[in-house]
């Protein structure tokens, strides 16, 4: 089949180039930009994905006086995810499809240059959950844009001219992109979307100077194409770390299903320089009808640690074997050095769509903590810490129900207790601040045929607020990852679909789907210190920078994404008597489409 034919040469190229690549030092430019906390140099503020700013001019005592400093319209409707970057005096702003890029001079607020790629509009319907884009990357005078049509481009940061451009996938097969590119060392790392089109997921590393593919690693298939060393790549099994062994993916699929088996990679990646490892998650197996893909479907739904230079997997851990709910494993991997059950640990913390908050040893891949971060979660009673596998609840198994049977009351819904909206880590409180969904679903799988480039979904879902709770569809929580414990819950009317930001000023800020930017006290998240209604619902990530001695906090507004657009128009069910209206349907009483950036600061006096 064409997919297999296409993949093998990629890998051969990948390995050959990797072997020839000389050892290079970590990208000093990116490190320098991150170290200067006046910048917002990478999407998460740092390579650990902590979303923490060291700036403290705006703090718990004065944030209540914060005002709008300036605003900017992107001129694009639909969902605005991610955030701008700030490098020195320049802000780089992106938009959803058509993926415009603006470079703005912060001194004059003049647009220095604008880039708008030409993309085939046929890519729009290929994007499963709105035409979002999660932002840019910057290194060595280049701005990197991952376009929707899978083209990865490097732009000259001074002029906006294309330096190089490379095709990362085939959009005609549904392989499109929404993720931000990430710069680790001398490589641009990017993923792929299309799990609902039967795309076989992979992660790719390109040389930042030439755009040449250095390595590509698939989530499923033969060991060589996954860059898995059967003897050296390890996983968590029987309460210990052990080699995955040969054909660890192939033997968990029936026949050739892995070739159209998903495991896409559209999340936020992180990097531990000392270990030379990068971390990311792989998404749901295709199709959503589990009956068509018996087996564990490895390595969909997994956390990956890979050597940045070679792409070879150091360890991998599958969270949801044989997915029956679309619990993508792509959510961000946050790296933090914290006490785990009292012991200082180089930890990786991950809030999975499946509703469990995982803490692993990021060096070894050992599973340390796995607990529900929303008490509503019911599809599994717990994670068995020895096997690392969920202990499923049969009543909520869509596979047990089988095709054409509607399994009801599953929590969380397919969009997870959390989706892509990234959490933050505050080194002062040692807590994680997590924007969450509080939504449940009915799920009816059905048989689908695979046709290249056509939707390959295979389930009908209805979603509604978690029953017997506060009636809202979201919570903002503070989480103790060392013990797997919810410290505090701040209920929200709608899903909190905005990336959180914590700062050295003792505040934690996030956006809401109604359009409020809210800042709360990091020590007591139920103490709201600030709120402002931006022009549209917020699914973007809060960021902070300093310019000419003044600290700014900014956020995109522009409703959309799976939670926003998908839900805004209505969730009214006519299929049964659950009466699950309300919820997201009310969103259109608060907000409309429209992308803009709102930037806040303290008044001058």
């Amino acid at each position, binding site marked *: 089949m064409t997919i297999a034919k296409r993949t093998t040469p990629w890998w051969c190229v990948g390995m050959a180039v990797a072997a020839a690549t000389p050892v290079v030092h970590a990208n000093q430019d990116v490190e320098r930009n991150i170290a200067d906390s006046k910048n917002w140099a990478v999407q998460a503020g740092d390579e650990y994905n902590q979303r923490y700013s060291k700036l403290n001019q705006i703090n718990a005592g004065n944030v209540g006086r914060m005002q709008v400093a300036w605003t900017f319209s992107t001129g694009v409707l639909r969902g605005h995810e991610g955030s701008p970057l700030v490098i020195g005096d320049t802000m780089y702003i992106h938009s959803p499809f058509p993926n415009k890029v603006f470079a703005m001079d912060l001194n004059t607020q003049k647009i220095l240059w604008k880039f708008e790629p030409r993309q085939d509009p046929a890519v*729009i*319907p290929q994007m499963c959950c709105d035409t979002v884009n999660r932002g840019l990357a910057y290194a060595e005078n280049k701005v990197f844009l991952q376009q929707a049509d899978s083209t990865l481009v490097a732009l000259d940061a001074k002029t906006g001219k294309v330096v190089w451009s490379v095709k990362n996938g085939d959009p005609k097969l549904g392989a499109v992109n929404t993720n931000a590119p990430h710069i680790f060392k001398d490589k641009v790392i990017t993923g792929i979307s299309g799990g609902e089109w039967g795309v076989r997921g992979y992660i790719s590393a390109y040389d930042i100077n030439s755009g040449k593919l250095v390595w590509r690693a698939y989530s499923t298939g033969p060991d060589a194409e996954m860059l898995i060393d059967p003897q050296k790549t390890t996983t968590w099994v029987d309460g210990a770390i052990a080699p995955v062994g040969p054909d660890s993916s192939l033997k968990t699929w029936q026949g050739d299903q892995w070739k159209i088996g998903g495991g896409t990679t559209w999340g936020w990646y992180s990097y531990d320089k000392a270990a030379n490892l990068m971390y990311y998650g792989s998404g749901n197996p295709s199709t959503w009808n589990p009956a068509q893909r018996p087996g564990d479907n490895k390595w969909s739904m997994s956390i990956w640690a890979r050597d940045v230079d070679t792409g070879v997997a150091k360890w991998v851990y599958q969270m949801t074997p044989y997915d029956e709910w679309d619990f993508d494993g792509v959510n961000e991997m946050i790296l933090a050095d914290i006490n785990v059950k009292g012991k200082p640990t180089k930890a990786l913390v991950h809030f999975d769509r499946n509703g469990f908050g995982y803490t692993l040893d990021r060096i070894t891949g050992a599973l340390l903590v796995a607990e529900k971060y929303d008490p509503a979660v019911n599809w599994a009673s717990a994670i068995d810490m020895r096997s690392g596998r969920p202990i499923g609840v049969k009543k909520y198994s869509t596979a047990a129900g089988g095709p054409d049977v509607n399994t009801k009351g599953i929590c969380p819904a397919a969009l997870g207790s959390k989706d892509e909206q990234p959490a933050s880590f505050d080194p002062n409180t040692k807590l994680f601040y997590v924007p969450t969904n509080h939504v449940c679903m009915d799920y009816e799988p059905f048989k689908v045929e695979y046709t290249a480039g056509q939707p390959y979904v295979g389930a009908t879902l209805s979603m509604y607020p978690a029953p017997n709770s506060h009636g809202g569809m979201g919570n903002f929580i503070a989480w103790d990852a060392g013990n797997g414990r919810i410290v505090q819950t701040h209920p929200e009317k709608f899903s909190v679909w905005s990336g959180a930001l914590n700062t050295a000023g003792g505040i934690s800020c996030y956006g809401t789907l109604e359009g409020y930017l809210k800042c709360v006290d990091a020590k007591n998240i139920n103490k709201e210190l600030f709120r402002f209604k931006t022009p549209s619902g917020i699914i973007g990530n809060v960021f902070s920078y300093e310019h000419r001695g003044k600290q700014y906090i900014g956020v995109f507004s522009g409703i959309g994404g799976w939670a926003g657009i998908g839900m805004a128009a209505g969730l009214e069910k006519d299929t049964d008597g659950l009466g699950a209206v309300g919820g997201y349907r009310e969103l259109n009483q608060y907000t409309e489409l429209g992308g803009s950036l709102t930037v806040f600061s303290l008044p001058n006096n």
Partner: protein
Amino acid sequence: MTRKIARRLGLVLALGAALGAARLAPAAATTPYKVVDGYKVDEFTMTGFRTWRAAACDRCHGANQEGLVGPSLVESLKTLSKEDFVKTLTDGRLDKGMPSWSTNQQVMGNIDALYAYLKGRSDGAITKARVEPMAAESAPAS
């Protein structure tokens, strides 16, 4: 609103709905679908539903055709002619996010059945998006 008024209003609404349902009772001779009890449909309409589901139309048009990113088909099919329906599916409306289904055999091969199902939903005759096959004996006499 007092409870009494609310109750009365509810009654009026229920009555209206009942009248509406009566008005929209299936006329098998003139509609492309056959339906009883609002959700039991003939095999042709069932094929239309399966086509709708397989092509994942619900991701844009909503699980109940009420509209999400894409428009409400309950509304659209009140004005869209059969001819324009076929044209829209064949050519797509790419700039608005509607794909061309011309290469999808399942959609193109069952386009009449898909229309029948959606027309039934738009007419209000099919009252539940999730339809079921009607038993042979409950089929209305034609």
